[in-house]
Structures are given as structure tokens and as C-alpha cells.
């Protein structure tokens, strides 16, 4: 474990409370974590356990009610919009639902152009931009020529999510938060997308925070696993440790919920 390295993203007592009075929901409840560079970290929990909320806090899209987030060893400072923009050059995300992730009024190439511009490529000649976009598309097995002048909603869910990966390919962030990137798409595309994601990670060496409700998937992709229940991290550690030797009954239950296809690993009896 690269424990001696400084963590690139960590949190102490991070809490997010929605609403007040009777509608008060503690979505994220005093979580502590240290994500190290180059690792693939999985956050596993059932639906409603606060995974997406935590991801949005980490992205700086919502402010935590309590607690601090540390980025590259220092307390994260995203007070101004300009600082946020700098932050987002280093930390990016893929959202759960590709159908909601795109502005339906903007064409696909503008989505990719935004990424080039964000990395300072605004002044590049048009041909160079097209070349970059085409390269990103071919990385995710999409044909850029067929995509120009199309709107995102004209693609399938799997294609949209691949386009999201193409975005990350262009942006080359330090950290990627992938919030259940495969949960809303058909089973066939799932493996492809996961493979592309892992391939991209190897290519640009980023830290990946992989959020999922599927502990089998987490075991398959990650180095470190955090188990989340009702906004709290109940268990964490290396994937082998947590999944092969679960201490919590909640973790146990998550493992038992895994569909039969993973049975050959025979996790529950190890």
C-alpha cells in the first residue's frame, strides 16, 4: 500500500445535511477518508446511502455542512469561481445518468470543444481541435465524423457514457469521480465502459474514485474499498481485506446481494 505517500484527496468529518426540521436528511455523516494518488478507490453502498452526495461534495458542486476536504495535502480552497475552475481542471466526474448529463440543446462537438478550451486550447487552429476530438472519440470507439451535428440525446445510453469518457480523455484530470457510470446502461455496454475507464486510467495515470452499489464490481476494479451505510463509512481497507474478510454484517449483506454470476469467486465462504 502506498500509505507513505501523501493522500491527494482526503476528508475529515465531512458531513452534508439536506433540509431542516422534519425533512432533515443527513446524507453524509462525518466521514473520514484518504485517497492516494494512482489508486482506484471504490465507495460501495446501497442506493440512498449518500454516495452521490459525497461525490458532489468532493467535486465542490455542493458545500459540506461540516468538515474539511484536503486536496493535495492542503485544505481545499474553492471560495471563488476562478479557484473552482482551477480545481475542476484536476478533478472531474462521470455522472450516474447519462440521459441527464447533457444539455439537450447543445451539439456533441461543443461538449468536447469545451474540454479542449478548458485545457487552454482555445487558440488552437480548427483542424487541430478536430484532430484532438477525433482522437478522443476513437479512444472510446466512437466515430467523430458521425457525431458532429448530432445532439447527445440522439445517442444510446452506452454511447453517451462513452462520450463522457472521451471528455475525460481530453481533460486528463488528476482525479476522476465515476458515480455509478454503468448503472443506467444496458448490460452489454457495461463491460466495455468499465474496460475503457480502466484503460484510460492506465494511460493518464489518474486516481479513480469509483462509486457503485455492486460490491463484485468494486472487487473487480479497485485497490481500496470504502463501505458506506446511511451516510457513514462503516468499513474500509484494501479490496481483498474488506471483501474477502468482511467484519460488518452490512458488508456481508452487500456481498450476499451480489448476483450468482460472481459465485465462482465464492466470496461468502472464503
Amino acid at each position, binding site marked *: 500500500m502506498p500509505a507513505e505517500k501523501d493522500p491527494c484527496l482526503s476528508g475529515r468529518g465531512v458531513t452534508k445535511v439536506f433540509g431542516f426540521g422534519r425533512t432533515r436528511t443527513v446524507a453524509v455523516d462525518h466521514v473520514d477518508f484518504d485517497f492516494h494518488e494512482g489508486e482506484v478507490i471504490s465507495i460501495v453502498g446501497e442506493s440512498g446511502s449518500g454516495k452521490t452526495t459525497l461525490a458532489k461534495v468532493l467535486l465542490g458542486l455542493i458545500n459540506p455542512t461540516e468538515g474539511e476536504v484536503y486536496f493535495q495535502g492542503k485544505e481545499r480552497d474553492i471560495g471563488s469561481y476562478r479557484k473552482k475552475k482551477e480545481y475542476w481542471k484536476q478533478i472531474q466526474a462521470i455522472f450516474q445518468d447519462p440521459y441527464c448529463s447533457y*444539455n439537450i440543446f447543445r451539439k456533441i462537438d461543443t461538449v468536447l470543444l469545451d474540454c479542449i478550451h478548458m485545457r487552454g486550447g482555445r487558440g488552437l487552429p480548427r483542424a487541430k481541435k478536430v484532430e484532438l476530438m477525433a482522437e478522443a472519440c476513437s479512444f472510446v470507439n466512437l466515430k467523430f465524423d458521425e457525431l458532429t451535428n448530432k445532439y447527445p440525446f440522439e445517442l444510446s445510453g452506452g454511447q453517451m457514457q462513452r462520450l463522457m469518457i472521451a471528455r475525460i480523455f481530453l481533460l486528463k484530470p488528476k482525479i476522476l469521480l465515476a458515480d455509478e457510470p454503468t448503472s443506467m446502461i444496458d448490460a452489454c455496454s457495461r463491460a466495455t465502459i468499465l474496460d475503457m475507464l480502466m484503460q484510460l486510467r492506465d494511460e493518464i495515470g489518474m486516481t479513480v474514485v469509483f462509486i457503485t452499489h455492486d460490491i463484485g464490481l468494486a472487487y473487480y476494479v479497485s485497490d481500496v474499498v470504502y463501505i458506506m451505510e446511511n451516510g457513514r463509512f462503516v468499513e474500509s481497507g484494501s479490496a481483498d481485506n474488506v471483501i474477502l474478510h468482511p467484519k460488518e454484517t452490512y458488508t456481508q449483506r452487500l456481498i450476499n446481494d451480489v448476483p450468482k454470476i460472481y459465485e465462482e469467486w465464492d466470496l461468502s465462504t472464503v
Partner: protein
Amino acid sequence: MEHTLRQVFRSGKFVAGFSIFVAVLLIVFLYPLIVPHPPLEIISQGTFFPPGIYVDVYDSIGSTTHYTLNLDDAVAKRIASKLKEEDRLAMKEWLVAAGLSESEIDAADTQSLMDQWVNNYDPKTNIPGMTNARRNYYIRLNTSLDGILSTEGAIIAARNPDTGVLEEKRIIPQSEYVNVSEVANVRVLPLGTDNFGRDVLTELVKATTVSLQIGFVAGSIATLIGLALGLLAGYVGGLIDDAIMFFTNLFTVIPSFVLLILISFSIGQERRGAVTIAVVIGFTSWVWTARAVRSQVISLRNRDHVNLSKLSGHSIFHIILADILPYIASYVVMALILQISAGILTEAGLAILGLGPKTTLVPTLGLMMNWAMIYQAQILGKWWAYFPVIITIALIAFSLNLMNTGLDQVFNPTLRD
């Protein structure tokens, strides 16, 4: 985009409303080209001339060609127009009161009735219980009956300028006709004239134009202010939201119509032009647009496509314009349509209270209602002075609201039946 438009134009309600509205616009646009009379020109001496075709008597007589038509019912019609059913009954009543037996009198037989009348009627006869007004009525009736059965033509005489003596020029037989298209002066007044003696239809068309302009200006101003404040409050949130909502709540608590009355009153009659009124209406009616836009924006601002736009480094300005505005555009169009409709109605309400635009420059639908009310058209039964105005206001409001309902059904599929 084209897809949405196609859907919109497939909605029956929208198309119905849109057609009515476009028809009103077309009339308003084409009418002045065809009938270029000045709308506020006073043409009638006297008020509330009934609707009809007005033919110049002098020109009819002087018309170059005269035609003879032998129509069977011409005499009957002439008599009927001078001797109405109620006049016949009144004559019978007088004759009975004067001592004739009821069975002797046949009110339907003009010839015998006239004979009996001429033989018996004497204005000096005192009939007990008859009011003075009634007596005068009989005197008037008697004079009008003079010559009713005559088949003589009318004689035209002109004064000789040298001698000052009347000289017979021509005899006009009763069966002589002129063709209206050959008469030099004919004025069609489909809706008669109003209390000032102005052509109601021409005035109404101009009033509709001005009212639509007022509605459009007021609606646009209200929608723009409401949109800007709603976007800002909803998206930026925090202190700006608090400040804007405080301001908005202030306006909500004070009824805008009362505010409008106070402002209109303090501006003063002289400086209240149509544009001023429109601007004032616009500045007092943005409140609910602002509230509605704000709540729409609040539900949009945490959507993932907005988050993605932020992650792509876009400015707040860009996000509001590109990621929020298109999503509420259909809503804003609907709000605009309702605001236009409300603007027209508000102007009418203000003008009826006498707080509308000043009355000397342009007519508006509200001003026409105001004039009709002040001159008691509704009491005098001069329906043409106010009824067409009501119909026009109702038609415009109806068509705009119908369009709005149609749009609502297209954009909120849950409402579709």
C-alpha cells in the same frame, strides 16, 4: 426545435387560439389600408348614429341616372316603414276612445283605417285620462301620416338666384331608384358612430392596434424583468436571492392594481400616453413571472447537465444563458403570452376607471369602454358603442389563453388528454 414547433402546431387548442389571434392581427393590419379614414375624426353631427349604410340624400337626387323599378311590395313597405304596428294599434285605441265601436275598426286594413282616422281625428278632442305626452304623440303621428297614401311624386324646386323665386326642376316619381354605387357620397358605418360622432369600427380597429401594442410592451417588460430577476435569484441564490425575494414579496403584498392606480393617478392625465401606461403596467406586473422563473431555475440548477457545464469551466453567465434558459424557454413564452393578455386587460381596467392614456391622441379598447360608459351607451341601448369592444377584448384574451393552454399541453405531457 422543428420537432417541438411541429408538435405545437398539432395541438388543436393552440392552432385555434393562434388562428383567432392572427385573424385579429390581419384585420387590424389590413383594415386601415382598405379604409384609410382617420380613426378619431368626428363625422356625425349628433351622437350614437346606428349602424348602417349612409347615403347622401342630395347626391341621390342629383345622381345622373335614375332607374324605374316596378316592385309589387314597394308601396306596402313604404307604408309599413311610416306606419308601424304599434302606431296602428294606437290609432285604433284613439278611435275607440273617441266613440267608434271596436268591431268597426280593422287595424290591418290601411285604407279603411286611414279613412276613419282622417274623418274622426281632431287634436282638440279631449279624451279623458290621456296624458299630455300621449296627446303630443298623436299630433306627431297625425302629421307623419300626411300624404302616406299619396302616389304623387316629390317635386324638386330650386331657388332662382336672380329672382329669388322657387322654380320647379323635376318630379321624382315613387318608383324611381338610384344605384348606390353611382351616388357620390355613401358612407358605410357598420358599427355606427359613438358619443363623439366618430366611426366606431375605424376607431375600434385603431384601438385594438394600440391595445395590442400596450399589451405587447407591458408583457415584454414584465417578462424581461421577471425573467432577469427570477434567473438571478434562482441560480445565484444566497444574499442576492434574499434581496430579490424581499423586493418581490413587497410587490406581492401590495396589490399591483392598487399600485397601478396610484402611479397612474400621480403621473397625471396630461403625461399619460399609451407608452407610459404600457411601461407602468409592465413595471408593476413582473412579480409572478419572477417567482415562477425562480422556482423553475431552482429545480434546474442542481441538474447534472448544469453540473457538467460547471465542470467544463463555463461562467455563471454562460450557464444561465445556455444551460438554464433553453430549458425554461417554453415556459417563458407561455408567461409572455399570458402577460400580454393581462396587459391588455389591465389597460382596459385602468381606462374604464378613467386612469388610462389621455383621451385626445389615440383610442384604446379601455378608453372606448370608458367613453361608452360616461355617455351612458349601455343605458340608452346604444349597443354598438360598447358591445363590439367587449367582444374584441374577449376574443384577444380568449385566443391568447387558448394558445397558452395548447402550449401547456405540449410542454407538460401529463396534462395531455
